[in-house]
Structures are given as C-alpha cells and as structure tokens.
C-alpha cells in the first residue's frame, strides 16, 4: 500500500519541480536563451506533440504534420499581412484552415496502415511544400511572406522574449494536459483500442475509420496552433520552413523525446534547440551532428528521453517495492 501511494507522489513531485523551473527559468536566463532556446522549444514541442499523439495513441506515424503546421502559418500570414485581418480573426482562420486540411488528408489516408501510412503522409507533407514554392499568387513562391508580427495584448508585446515564452509554454502545457485527459475518456480508450486491434473494434461495432479520421484531424488542429505560434516566432513563413529538412527536424524532436511520450517532446525540443544553436557556433556541419545524434538515439535508446526516464522510474519503483515489504511486516 505504501508503494502504491509512494509512486504517484514521486511523480507529482517531479511535475511540480518541472513546472516551477519552467516559471522561474526565463527570469534567470538571458533574453537570448529565453527566446532562442525556451520559446523555440515550447512551440516546437507542440508540433512534435501532434506527431507523438498520433503515434502513441493512434498507432499512426504521420509525416504530414509539418505540412499542416505550414497551412496554419501560411493562413495566418495571408490573412494578417495580405488582407489586414485583425490577429484574432487570422488566428481563427489559420486554425480552421489547418483543421480542414488535416480532415482532407485524414479522409485520404484513413484506410492505410503502418509503414504505408508513413509514406503516404510524407508525400502529402511534401505536396504542401511544393505547392507553396510553385504558387506565386497566394504564397509568393520561394520568398514566402515576411513581416508577420505577433499581436500586442494591451501594453504587452508578444514579440518580447518573456511574454512570448509564457504564451508558448502555457499553450504547450495546455495541449499536453488536454490530450492526456482526453485519452482517459471513452473516446481516448476507443482510439487506443483501434490502435491495438482494429478488427476486434470493428467487430464490436466501432467505426475504426471514424476514430482515425477524428484523431488525425485533432492532431492537425494542434499542428495548426504550432503553426500560428511558429510564424509569430519566426516573423516569416516560406517554403523552406516546410521542406524535407524541417519535416526531419520535428521528427528528430519527437524521436529524441520518445515517440511514446508526450512529455518527452519538451525534452526533445530543448535538446534540439540547444544542439542547433550551439553546435552551429563551433562547426558548420551541425546537420551531420544532428544526423549522428538521431542515429545514436534510434539505435541505442529507441524510447528517447521519455523512454529513459520511465525506465529509470520503473527501476526506482521496483527498488522501493522491494524495500517496502520489510517495513510493513
């Protein structure tokens, strides 16, 4: 009984200290670190979470998330910069566009599974990239749309490092919390059932296809949120933000954090931001460094950081469980 109560309290302790660090850190760090590491990591984690969510709970490894994220970014930029729509209207438009795009993709891919699903979604993601390059009227070709500004809330500009960080990180935490809670509902359990045994779920009268479509669309909305925050952070959206390298960037964040761990995306995004920021200062070949890091993680720590943490946690819980019988007797 003691072990049963002990395990969650250790976990909530870890959560509380992480949350505390997330609140205090930006005030201790330089504004460069707050913006270029922490804020970048926070919104990148949202995009990676949309990928990990689909993989973990839906069994769908989607490479289309960056394309959908791009639809969100472009829609915001086109509405706000091109048509002068106020920011809240442009945000709403961007989320609707990303969600509709995800729904369209979902209807196309819902009948494909496994590695084939991966391939089809990769092709869809790259289609968005090539469309934005070849289209001048709407997306302005390879130059993209510069001059995107985050809004002002009263006297606070969301372009400032600390407000931007708190916005991005609180949205990221909200997404994490929302998804975690959603997966405990009837819907979440049914989705996981569809992941584990689609034939059985079908026999039980569930429409597996609908669950997959809904999950993919939801993940698309989340990627769209990341798209809005991302375009605020970058100040520009261009095809080069959606190309294969970028798809791999977000995949690397998800893999470093662990494809089975939503929380892990935060660790993955911070590690990734640190490596890209600091590796580029001592070598031009930082992409090679990233490739080798990715290779090492895939080969030696397939669960990523999240997998390592839960393995250590399990080991600690085991040690505790071995200790407690003696004390309760």
């Amino acid at each position: 009984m003691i072990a049963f109560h002990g395990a969650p309290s250790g976990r909530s302790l870890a959560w509380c200290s992480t949350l505390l660090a997330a609140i205090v850190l930006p005030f201790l760090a330089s504004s460069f670190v707050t913006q270029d590491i922490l804020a970048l990591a926070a919104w990148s984690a949202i995009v990676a979470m949309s990928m990990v969510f689909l993989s973990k709970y839906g069994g769908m490894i989607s490479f289309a998330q960056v394309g959908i994220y791009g639809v969100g970014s472009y829609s915001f930029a086109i509405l706000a910069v091109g048509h002068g729509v106020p920011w809240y209207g442009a945000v709403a438009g961007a989320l609707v566009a990303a969600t509709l795009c995800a729904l369209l993709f979902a209807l196309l891919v819902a009948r494909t599974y496994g590695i084939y699903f991966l391939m089809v979604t990769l092709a869809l993601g790259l289609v968005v990239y090539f469309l934005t390059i070849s289209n001048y009227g709407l997306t302005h070709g390879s130059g993209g749309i510069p001059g995107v500004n985050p809004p002002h809330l009263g006297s606070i500009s969301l372009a400032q490092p600390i407000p931007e960080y708190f916005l991005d990180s609180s949205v990221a935490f909200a997404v994490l919390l929302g998804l975690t809670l959603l997966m405990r509902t009837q819907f979440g359990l049914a989705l996981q059932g569809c992941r584990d045994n689609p034939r059985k779920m079908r026999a039980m009268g569930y429409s597996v296809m609908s669950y997959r479509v809904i999950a993919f669309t939801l993940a698309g909305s989340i990627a769209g949120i990341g798209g809005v925050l991302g375009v605020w952070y970058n100040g520009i959206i261009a095809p080069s933000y959606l190309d294969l390298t970028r798809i791999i960037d977000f995949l690397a964040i998800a893999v470093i954090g662990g494809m089975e761990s939503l929380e892990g995306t935060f660790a993955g995004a911070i590690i990734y931001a640190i490596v890209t920021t600091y590796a580029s200062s001592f070598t031009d070949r930082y992409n090679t460094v990233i490739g080798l890091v990715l290779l090492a993680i895939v080969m030696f720590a397939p669960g990523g950081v999240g997998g390592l943490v839960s393995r250590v946690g399990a080991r600690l819980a085991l040690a505790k469980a071995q200790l407690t019988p003696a004390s309760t007797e």
Partner: protein
Amino acid sequence: MEEFALTTLNGVAMAALYFLVAAGFSLIFGVMRIVNMAHGSLFLLGGYLGWSVAALTHSWLLAIVAAGAATAALGLMLQQGLLRHYQGQELTEALITIAVSIVIADLLVATYGGLSYQIPAPVPLGHSIRIPGTALRYSSYSLALIGVALATGLALWLFLERTIWGVVLRAGIDDRQMVAVLGLNIQRIFALVFAIGAGLAGMAGVLDGTLLSLVPGVDSSYLVAALAAVIVGGMGSLEGSAVGALVVGMATEFGIGYFPSYAEALTFAVMAVVLVVRPTGLLGKAR
C-alpha cells in the same frame, strides 16, 4: 499541337528518370518493408560523383558506371552495417535511413556547396534530332534516356521473371518468412536488392545531372517523385513503378506546361484519387 507533343515527350523523359529512381525504391520496400528515405540522397550522391568522374576523365560512360558502382556499394554498406540488425522494425529502419540521409546531404553540401552542376552529355547525344515521320525536333539525349529506362525496365523484368534469383525475390515479396523457412538465403536477396536499388538511384543521378542539373534539394524532389510514383502504381511491383512513374512524369510536365502555379496540385490530385479508389495503388496487390 506541337506544344502538346513536346510536353508529352518531356513527360515521358521525366517518367524515365522517375522510373529508375522509383523501381529500386519500390523493390526495396516490397521485399524488406523499408521506406528508404536515403534514396534521394543516394541519387544526388551518384550525380555529384558522376560529375567529378566526368570532370576528371572526360568520359560520361565511366561517370555513370562509377556512380552506379559507388552508390550500390554504399547501399550495401547501409543495409549490412545498419539496417540488417533491425529487420522487421519498420519505424526504426525508416528513421535510420532518415539519419543517414541527413548526414549524406550535409556532407554533399560541405563538398560541393550550393552551386548547380551539369554533366556534359556524351558527344554523340549532344544535339537534337528530327523524329521520323514528323517535323518535330527533340533532344537526342532525352530520347536515349527513354531508351535507357526501357532497357533497364526490361532487364529488371527478365531478372525478376526469368531467373531463379528473381523467383526467390518475388516469393520474398509475397511471404518472406515462408521463403526463409524453405531454407533459401533471404539475407542474400535483401543485400542484392538493396545494392541494385541504390545503384539505380546513383545512375539516375548522373542521368538527371546530364538532362537538368544537380543542386541541393534535388534529392528530396526525386524522393517525393518516387513516393508518388509507387503510391500511384502500387508498392513492390515493377510494372506498378513504371505506370506510376509515367503518370507522375506526365502530371508534372503537363502541370508545368499548362498551369504552372498548381503543377504539384495535379500530381497531388492524381495521387489522392488513386488513394481513394485503390489504396494499394493501381497495380498493387491487396494486403
């Protein structure tokens, strides 16, 4: 009318290149269930190597042979050194090829920079010829390219249909466990298919570097063309790759020729229709 005929010929020439990339990609997927994300990188690497060899020796033939051999050897190393230990773990295999593709792409940028390179066409194919029976003139190199793709397709077909290796390989596509149970050395087949696929990609790189040009980014555009071709045509089938490559090549060229802003949308639309009507591709087997 002349524009239409030229666009069609361009489409067939693009399809020839796409086929050479897609056939290897599709065979590797068909036999090993590996989505080889490094296929585009092998393609670009082959192109650059071919350029270097051609610059040194002034021989186009030597360039394409060297590029094919080098990328086949690299593919073999990738399969034997890394992928072999993760057989059946599809995501891990895809991620390994992604990591390798990042490293290859970055090292290519380090070596060749961002400039565009063109490989001079072999001397007898440097000009255009009149197509018999018409007033149309067309690049003899592009016509030769179509011939090379046809010959390669025929050779692959003969290999698959008429040799004992091909029989084992096709059996491996249908049921690789059964093949292994029968005591056939499936590992050797895997290695062979990977080498052939990688070598074809490298040779296609040289052919593309002669037809168009080589720049960073070409790797992902050919990867996506190969993806689209096998999604449309069907996975693991040689005929499927040919049909898919033809559809994608035509869609690309007609898109560029007639509505350039939405050229990719046409390829996408074709792919979407195929996915809705036949999720396994036009010639793919239902699984």
